[in-house]
């Protein structure tokens, strides 16, 4: 089973994307497997709505460990299972809280072995300073992902009014990557993501 992972800054919409994508490709309920840093595994059964209530939040660093769900995707006449793993967001700075640093370490180690990386970038986050600075964490993830060859950027929050202009900026900053504009919250653009997943499972 291929493992696809969702990475990005904290509060860029990783968990929301994961759950809405699961719902988009036909899951009504999900079994979320939480894997903490010391390899403790717990599994919980949620309906999509419950999961959104419990796992998503507007605060930073809601997700602190790896949260995997196994999903089915229909390709022609066959059904293929794949694992979609939501991760702890990573920022440039060393975080003061140990739990979150551990979460980040988990994210990094998963990125090394995952079969495909979805990199979520918050379009509303893109500012002048962001464009000028070549050392943001998104650049690092991009540089790392692009050599891996199995990498795509999901430009999230396309529903935010001024986001459209930012999309062109984004493609200038990251010229080599495939960029898919989505809105995780409103489930827009998930069709393209599904095609991308279908090619890579």
């Amino acid at each position, binding site marked *: 089973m291929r493992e696809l992972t969702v990475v990005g800054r904290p509060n860029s919409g990783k968990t929301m994307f994961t759950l809405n994508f699961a719902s988009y490709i036909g899951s009504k309920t999900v079994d979320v497997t939480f894997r903490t840093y010391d390899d403790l595994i717990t599994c919980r059964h949620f309906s999509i709505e419950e999961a959104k209530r419990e796992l998503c939040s507007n605060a930073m660093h809601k997700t602190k460990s790896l949260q995997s769900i196994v999903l089915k995707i229909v390709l022609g006449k066959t059904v293929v299972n794949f694992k979609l793993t939501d991760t702890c967001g990573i920022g*440039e700075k060393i*975080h003061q809280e*140990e739990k979150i*640093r*551990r979460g980040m370490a*988990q994210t*990094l*180690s998963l990125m090394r072995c995952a079969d495909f990386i979805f990199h979520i970038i918050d379009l509303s986050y893109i500012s002048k300073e962001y464009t000028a600075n070549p050392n943001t964490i998104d650049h690092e993830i991009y540089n*790392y992902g692009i050599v891996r060859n199995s990498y795509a950027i999901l430009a999230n929050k396309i529903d935010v009014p001024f986001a459209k202009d930012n999309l062109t900026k984004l493609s200038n900053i990251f010229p080599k990557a495939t960029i898919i504009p989505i809105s995780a919250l409103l489930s827009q653009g998930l069709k393209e993501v599904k095609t991308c997943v279908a090619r890579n499972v």
Partner: protein
Amino acid sequence: MSYVCPQDIFLAVENGEISPAQAFKSLREMDNITAYPTKVDNRQKRIEEILYELDHLIGLSEVKRLVREIYAFIEIQRRRAQEKLNIEPLVLHMIFKGNPGTGKTTVARILGKVLREIGVLQRGHLIEVERADLVGEYIGHTAQKTREQLKKAYGGILFIDEAYSLARGGEKDFGKESIDVLVKAMEDHKDELILILAGYQKEMENFLQTNPGLRSRFPIHIDFPDYNQQELLHIAEQLCAKRQYTLSLETQALLLKLLLQQSSNIENFGNARTVRNIIEKAIRQQAVRLMAKNNITRQELILIEPVDLKEVKE
């Protein structure tokens, strides 16, 4: 700061020594470093790795020298073949002589891997058989059974433990029939099979004397001498280290005493295998001892005390 493996980087992120951004840089550097040399000469490296494994066995200096010799011989024959020079046929059937627990099977396994990497053997696996696997119950059954085992071994090594037992039964024993089949196969299939006969020193000598044709068909004879006390102690330490245990000094002294006692008592002293059994028993005893305690420190979990050995008497 440079890191050796990815785990170090993850640990550094966790401990707050470096930021995730730096971690990505280090990871990229690491991938660049590891991406190149692997391609240069994978085969050579793998062979060296296997030989390193061999060098890590304790004692057996004669055996190690011989394996290196065989490796060099094969390599040079190959180079000669490239230069269109006459080459010696590669007949690598062997006889291993030594007491039980002196490392015959272990060395055979390593040889299999080396020969596969060099390209002499296609698969390099080891089929371990004994008399019961080769000799049948009625007339004609033996040849069938032996051939079956041979078929399994093609492309690898057929290792016959306690091979002298094939010639033990006397005139009417089926063992002889098995030897005939083996001899024929080792000539006919000498490119795809290596036959190793193993057994105790004395018995093997007798065996070879009763079958004069056999000796000349096996160009390589390797003697596996018994380990001395010091080597056995080393083995014990290595076994413990592999399992993340350590022996205290008193335990080592006691172990030596125990080994001395056993080697004088038992005729076919099991050597390294005995040491392994003792250590495994001691580990179990240690577990029993620690279960009774309430607070166990990390150190206690690692250390094997003389008390644990006292219970071990075979």
